[in-house]
């Protein structure tokens, strides 16, 4: 399940609702990863653009991978502005097995960082500035210019 929200996430609502939703699923480990905006470089917050069609298919591919291991994934992300110390991202795994859960949350979060079609901007001095230096080209990028 993929949830997109305008602005900051209501973390208590989301992580406890997910816990309740899976109360009858016979999992052994539930690991939510919660990403929160840090105060650094004088930013007031971050802002996000999300391209939902490709994000959804990326998520569905991961969900299928999880299901093959008996596990389940959930994810929530913000669109628009999220201020310092507010949260913009939650990824969670439910799994019968501890090892599967620990490995999957790590791989899922890392692939999310590298592949999910979401763009980040610093909110600073009233401007919305693309975070080019922290961004990663998606695997296979550059084919238009002749890279392949």
């Amino acid at each position, binding site marked *: 399940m993929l949830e997109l929200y305008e602005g900051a996430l209501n973390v208590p609502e989301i992580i406890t609702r997910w816990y309740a939703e899976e109360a009858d699923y016979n999992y052994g480990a539930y690991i939510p990863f919660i990403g929160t905006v840090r105060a650094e470089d004088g930013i007031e917050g971050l802002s996000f653009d999300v*391209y939902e069609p490709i994000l959804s298919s990326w998520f569905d591919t991961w969900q299928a991978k999880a299901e093959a291991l008996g596990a389940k994934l959930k994810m929530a992300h913000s669109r628009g502005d999220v201020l310092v110390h507010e949260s913009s991202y939650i990824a969670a795994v439910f799994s019968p097995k501890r090892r599967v859960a620990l490995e999957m949350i790590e791989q899922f979060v890392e692939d999310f960082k590298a592949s999910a079609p979401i763009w980040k901007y610093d909110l600073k001095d009233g401007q919305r500035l693309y975070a080019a230096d922290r961004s990663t080209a998606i695997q296979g990028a550059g084919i238009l210019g002749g890279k392949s």
Partner: protein
Amino acid sequence: MITIEFLGPIQKAAITMEAVSLRDVAEVLKQDDELVQWIDNCAVALNDTLVASLDIPLKDGDKISLLPPVCGG
């Protein structure tokens, strides 16, 4: 007619053009001064599926998307 849209930080309105393959589209976009900084680091999607090659035939109504470097979370 195909449509090309530019996602995230690429400040450019969608364009339409005639093209029979992704290679044709690449030739046009490479000439676009607004895209100089993006052409080498964008991924390309055809109808919302990422593609790994330019040798893909296009048909009327296809949508091509350019995805610049990402940073979710």
